[in-house]
């Protein structure tokens, strides 16, 4: 691919801080990606609207507050409604191991729990973007 990969880094839900999201945003930038960062407290609808307008390859979401089982699949569903299912959707944050298989089944390509080196996330994105 001779263009930068575009990634929307989004924080759905009511978390009060976004240190983790900013950290990953910087790591992705340093890996040569264009990161669109939209700030805290995004609804799934806002995330999808931004993803469409920005025509991103990847939506990367992070949640600390525990609402992932509802919010992550909701974003996948809304993206499908927009016929944007060629976008890679990944999640991160405080997510119990038991929840991961269910989320993957619902279309979240991968879940990155705290402590995952950013290089793992970067490699995953590079190897799995669906669009040319």
């Amino acid at each position, binding site marked *: 691919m*001779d*263009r*930068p990969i575009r990634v929307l880094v989004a924080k759905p839900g009511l978390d009060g801080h976004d240190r983790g999201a900013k950290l990953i*945003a*910087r790591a*992705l*930038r*340093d*890996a*040569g*990606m*264009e*990161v*669109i*960062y*939209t*700030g805290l407290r*995004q609804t799934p*609808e*806002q995330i999808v*609207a*931004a993803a*469409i*307008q*920005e*025509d991103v390859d990847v939506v990367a979401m992070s949640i600390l507050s525990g609402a992932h089982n509802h919010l992550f699949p909701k974003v996948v569903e809304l993206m499908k409604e*927009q*016929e*944007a299912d060629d976008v890679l959707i990944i999640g991160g944050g405080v997510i119990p191991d038991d929840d991961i298989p269910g989320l993957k089944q619902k279309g979240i390509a991968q879940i990155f729990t705290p402590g995952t080196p950013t290089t793992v996330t970067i490699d995953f994105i590079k190897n799995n973007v669906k669009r040319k």
Partner: protein
Amino acid sequence: MKLINKMLSGDKRACARLISIVENDKLESEKIIKQIYSHTGNAHIVGITGPPGAGKSTLTDKIVKSLLKENKKIGIIAVDPTSPYSGGAILGDRIRMQDLALNPNVFIRSMGTRGYLGGLAKATRNAIKVLDAYGCDYIFIETVGVGQSEVDIVKAADTVVMVMVPGLGDDIQSIKAGIMEIGDIFVVNKSDLFGAQRTATEINMMLDLNTNEKRRPPVLMVTSTKNEGIDKLIEETKDHYTYLKESKEYDERRQKNLRIELLELVEEEIRNIVISETNKDNKMENAVKELADKKVDPFTVRDKFLNSIKK
């Protein structure tokens, strides 16, 4: 092309895809622009520029919210710098425009400069054309935070809003060269902060020194975060557009910019032709060696290269 028809009928995803193509694919981009060019020319293009952190995104958000009450369709292109080291970028202007994301009449697009130095991205001009054809009444272009010489916005916009803030102090002096001249409207944003009046006075003094302006730019006090001064700014923006249209300046300005655009396109193409031509048989490499050994001078080589591409 199917995408183009979808975009012309108002499809956001098609519009977004077309902007990506215009950004990434030179040949496809040309095909698209050829097809949509006759649909452009209807939007009022407004540049929002000024130093980093002046409140350009916050201001744009407030202006757009107000214009939406008039049922206008609005495009926003927000440019942020690409890192020269990694080629990546963090595009963060949307943070200040969160409430606009879902509005059906608003389209927001973030762009990295990708090595371009004038305060815009190389593809911004063509992205504007896409949004214009998409049917926007207004297109706002937020430049990167400017410092010294990022004045490309003047080649792309009808109206340039220069956003200043209190406390720039001596910075006003350093910014003024070149950059101050491109403002059609000056905003002192963050007027809730100490020193706003003084900043306005300084800008006014500077503008009074410049007597060859066709139209003296107004200086407006605004507090974006409190939505103060926004309606006045919108009024002045519209007045400026009316002035352009009623005087000859609208046509003069657009034609001047078209001339620049055309010359840049020609330059780029000649450059590409010369590069591909002189890559053959190591012509370029050999010439560089000869130059280094002082066997020949640069102007002679230039003429030789140019002659070799003449049909």
